[in-house]
């Protein structure tokens, strides 16, 4: 961090948007060494892929800024994906989107009530829901995948609008909306405030519990939209889909520079981080890296990113301290 805390001049600077530079650098290296990276369709594919994790990461960014996190998003995703696939034939796109968003918000609200209402630590509560949502998904489908019959629905995940992949359009619009929410609305400020200091927020009259529940609802809502995009792409949904998704989502948020200790974050950076991960995955495929080796590479990249992005031991100390305080208020 800059010692005086003054923001550096200029629209984009190395500190604030380092992840963007990382993406561009990575693209440059790939383009120099692999012909596929000089083809526009590759980038289109990357943007498409980035949206599947990225959309949910928007909600998760709010959550982490406020000092919480949600380990159940992968399980929520499976449940919501099943729901949307089952519904979409009867509701059409618009209502279907609305419905899955609301359903997601409902799940999220439940999470939020556990955490903010019953005062169960977020880690534990969402850990439990991680089991429960997936179990529900399994029960509802009896372990079988569900598919949809409407071919137009695949356009959502697989199509493009004016040359831009449809999921990415969703992603961009949602990032813009989310950024407006965070920076320009009183509600957004309260998210930041809670992540900075629970006690000071209380004194300022912020209804902390209410805001936290709402944030979890947002996480669920965004996960719902992601579920729709992914199910559309995969032509189906099942209870075993995207196991480990929550880790991908959290990784995107943290790689984007949002500290797990909360109080500060940027949706735009989450966007760039999602693109980075998608680029990495695509590159490894193009370079024919053994799929198992790919995991190792991703893990190492994550380590590298975490050691740089300032998530350090003393921040974890602050994190725990703040949780303890927040639990007391």
């Amino acid at each position: 961090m800059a010692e005086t805390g003054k923001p550096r001049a200029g629209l984009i600077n190395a500190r604030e948007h380092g992840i963007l530079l990382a993406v561009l650098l990575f693209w440059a290296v790939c383009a120099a060494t692999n012909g596929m990276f000089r083809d526009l369709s590759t980038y289109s594919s990357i943007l498409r892929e980035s949206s599947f994790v990225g959309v949910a990461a928007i909600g998760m960014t709010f959550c982490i800024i406020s000092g919480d996190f949600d380990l159940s998003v992968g399980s929520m995703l499976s449940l919501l994906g099943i729901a949307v696939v089952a519904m979409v034939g009867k509701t059409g796109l618009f209502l279907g989107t609305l419905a899955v968003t609301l359903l997601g918000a409902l799940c999220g609200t439940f999470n939020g009530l556990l955490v903010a209402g019953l005062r169960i630590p977020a880690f534990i509560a969402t850990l439990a829901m991680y089991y429960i949502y997936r179990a529900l998904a399994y029960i509802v489908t009896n372990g079988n995948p569900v598919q949809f019959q409407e071919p137009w629905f695949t356009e959502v995940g697989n199509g493009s609008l004016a040359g831009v992949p449809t999921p990415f359009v969703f992603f961009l619009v949602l990032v813009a909306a989310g950024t407006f929410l965070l920076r320009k609305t009183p509600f957004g400020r309260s998210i930041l405030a809670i992540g900075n200091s629970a006690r000071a927020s209380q004194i300022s009259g912020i209804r902390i519990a209410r805001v936290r529940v709402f944030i979890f609802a947002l996480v669920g809502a965004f996960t719902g939209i992601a579920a729709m995009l992914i199910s559309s792409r995969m032509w189906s949904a099942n209870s075993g889909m995207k196991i480990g998704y929550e880790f991908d989502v959290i990784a995107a948020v943290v790689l984007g520079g949002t500290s797990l200790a909360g109080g500060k974050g940027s949706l735009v950076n989450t966007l760039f981080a999602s693109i980075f991960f998608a680029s990495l995955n695509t590159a490894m495929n193009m370079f024919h890296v053994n799929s198992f080796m790919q995991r190792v590479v991703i893990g190492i990249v994550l380590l590298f990113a975490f050691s740089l992005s300032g998530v350090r031991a003393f921040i974890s100390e602050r994190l725990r301290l703040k949780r303890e305080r927040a639990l007391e208020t």
Partner: protein
Amino acid sequence: MPTAIDIRNVTKTFPGVAALTDVSFAVRSGEVHAVVGENGAGKSTLMKILGGVYQPDRGEIDIGGKRAHIRSVRDAVDHGISVIYQEFNLMPELTVAENIFAADLPTVPFLPLVRRGHLAERTEALLRRLALELPPSAYVKNLSVSQRQMVEIAKALHQDSSILIMDEPTAALTAAEVDTLYRIIRTLKAAGKTILYISHRLKEIFDVADRVTVLRDGRYVGTEAVSSITQDAVVRMMVGRDVQHFYPSAASSGGEVALEVRNLTRRGAFEDITFTVRKGEVLGLAGLMGSGREELMKALYGLLACDAGEILVGGRAAGIRSPRDAIALGLGFVTEDRKEAGIFPLMSVKENVSLNVLRRLSGFGGLSIDARRERALLADYATFLNLRYASEDQAIMYLSGGNQQKIVLARALAAECGILLLLEPTRGIDVGAKAEIYHLIGELSRKGIAIILVSSDLPELMSVSSRVLVIWQGKLTGDLGGSDVDETTIMQCATGSRRFTSEKS
């Protein structure tokens, strides 16, 4: 007398800030040596250098006559230096004994098994040297601030440190506990230890120190024997100018009743409290620590619930159940715990000021914050409160304590508050900023704002307030106005040996 610490030409610079410049002085062995200075004077940096947290850019330090290179906290301990910081370095989930002996627990020969009985004995022996009654098996998290401090001192004793550095040791202690601390300091001194004592409270310096060194703006100003200098002279050295009207004269009372409290009770905290505050009045709340003043203030603001009684704002009964209710009724609250309950550290100066009034600053039905109005709000308060910051988007955590406190005040004021509740507003703030805040309190009262002030600094309380209430064990024992306000009467009421009510003017 041999020299314990010899500091020569020590300089330490951080990017953009010269924390210490060419500081030189000596601390004699076996003396209690106070170091005073305003915030930013460099005392804290100097202590951290002695404690091994920072390394000086230039200069030398001799300990006990020998050149010392203190490059880490362990180095400092090896040189016989123990630092007791304001935020203690204790492990709350460990016992007293485990905290003291953390690094060298006594074990059974050849086996990694802790000898618990032996540990307890040795701990008791240490505590006895300080004449302290603390069970070695008590968990530190259950101890009071004063008791934790004792554990820190016992740690220093165990490490056989010859030099103890105490950073604002009395900030959170009651008067009785301060006396205990003095006693311990004298015991340590008698045992030949050297003590470096940093404090803002000049009265304490004069109570317990032998000599005092003054730093200002990172430079050395002077060292004097406490017996041959006055408090005013020390202040002058600290501030570099004559501080006129160290405490501004109290504003006069009068005006309609802003807040009325009737028979307010909270079990275990306070009982049957009744008083009124008028517009433009500064009501001081005096009392010993734990008397219930803090709980009363929090109850008035809706942070704590009451079991009986009522609060009337502007003549009408107010059901204040949360800070939201309080803010809606025009109450503002500034707490003493700036770091944890005052500022939003990572948010900007601008955002810290505007947080309570965002809806007012927003267009589109309270949805979109108008950046221009937000900036204007900050500008207004920047002038009124004489705020100093590098940029309105600067994170507030980088500002000095005094400026941070003023911003917290600005936030409360911005909500057009008619009643301001101030809980230890000048704690941990240097003399210059303190004077500014007193001045502000006076101005605010002249504007018609009713102010309730809680402060453990009695002289400060007495001169800023137009009236003083005294609380003892949760009950109102004193209601003093005008010439009745004097230290003796207040202390008598505060210790429960007297009840006094002034004639209402």
